[in-house]
């Protein structure tokens, strides 16, 4: 285990940052959180992530670790003796977990943000249907990975739980803004139940921004950055 303080460069609304915070919390690791202005990037951020200039960045002593899924695996391997493992035990189960994490990364954010960015009812409906398809896939993934237990990681939360869980309040915010039900118990009942269980876990309660705060933030983005709604 490497010596040195832990620092996390983050942004409060970023699901990529949230999942790292959840895992650090879950492992009981203390760290200094440094909020970044992603529109006005600091010297600190540019120094510690020169390749992408993005959050999250985990600074561990003199080491910089970037990309949220890479950070999660680092936490798993560097603090393997502490708490439950982040990734599953067997190579095959790990491959499945990595597969679904990559799927979530590729598809989910773009899809529900697409709902918020849609300028026509037609485009919105298309993105809603797309989000449903993705969540239905993840329902199947949950069935396979959980093996009947409460979380993707089994009895305790793991890699996939935080990867997907970091989007939960964002999805609820998108539901409020669009008026559409995304996590629908008629379409993905297991996932809905998992969501409720996940939101009750300590690390989720501590790291997830509230739906209200995200809704306000997303509505702001709709006006300023995405320009799909005119300013009042």
């Amino acid at each position: 285990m490497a010596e040195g303080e832990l620092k996390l460069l983050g942004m409060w609304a970023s699901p990529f940052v949230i999942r790292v915070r959840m895992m650090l919390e879950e492992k009981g690791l203390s760290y200094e959180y440094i909020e970044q202005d992603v529109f006005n990037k600091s010297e600190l951020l540019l120094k510690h992530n020169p390749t992408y200039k993005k959050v999250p960045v985990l600074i561990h002593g003199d080491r910089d670790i970037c990309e949220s899924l890479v950070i999660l695996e680092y936490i798993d391997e560097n603090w393997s003796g502490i708490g439950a493992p982040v990734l599953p035990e067997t190579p095959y189960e790990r491959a499945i977990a990595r597969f679904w994490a990559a799927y979530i990364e590729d598809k989910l954010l773009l899809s529900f943000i697409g709902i918020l960015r849609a300028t026509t009812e037609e485009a919105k409906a298309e993105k809603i249907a797309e989000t449903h398809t993705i969540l239905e896939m993840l329902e199947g993934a949950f069935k396979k990975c959980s093996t009947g237990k409460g979380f993707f990681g089994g009895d305790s939360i793991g890699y996939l739980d935080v990867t997907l869980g970091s989007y939960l309040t964002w999805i609820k915010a998108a539901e409020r803004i669009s008026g559409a039900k995304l996590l629908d118990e008629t379409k993905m009942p297991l996932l809905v139940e998992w969501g409720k269980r996940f939101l009750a876990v300590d690390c989720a309660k501590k790291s997830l921004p509230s739906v209200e705060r995200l809704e306000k933030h997303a509505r702001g983005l709709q006006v300023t950055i995405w320009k799909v709604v005119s300013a009042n």
Partner: protein
Amino acid sequence: MASEKGIKLLDFWVSPFGQRARIALAEKGVEYEHKEENLLAEKSELLLKSNPVHKKIPVLIHDGKPVCESLIIVQYIDEVWPDKAPLLPSDPYQRAQARFWADFVDKKVFECGGRLWKLKGEEQEAAKKEMIEILQILEAQLGDKKYFGGDTFGFVDVAFVPLTSWFYSCETCANFSVEAVAPKIVLWVQRCMERESVAKTLSDPKKVYEYVRFLKKRFRIE
């Protein structure tokens, strides 16, 4: 499918992603059945059944259980056969670095390369500028090391080297020279080609270029 023993790789001859898996298997000395999919025709039932989510190659089927996505396959191979030719280092931070750079290669090189041979005019120029930047970042990362991982051939090398067969196509279509912008990368490719696993797996760049020209005609890009 579940009870079938052995290792099968569903692949397509020119796919750099399939080649990553083949190099990893060769480095480990693992025997497997290679099944060529004809991606220009209908996808086989086995492929559709093994990768229902993406319907893409490569797929590694190990004792009936499918593993999809090339870098996930390479990590799986490394974890199942850890004793020979380890591809990821043992130190957690070194592993994080390897995963970061393999991911960088994955996100940037193929997609930008694709734009280089598919597009024309201003868009192609923009892609060329981007590709040069990407190559220079990788050149700096390689530095004076023998391989990206240091002295031993590893994960980032496996992730990147199959994509280098496409350099000739990018250079020809977009009129630039990889050697001029990233000479260390070119020497690194030559060093990798001294390895049997790489030499026997990589497509001939001229054959890749023929394939690119075929695709351009087929999709009326020319």
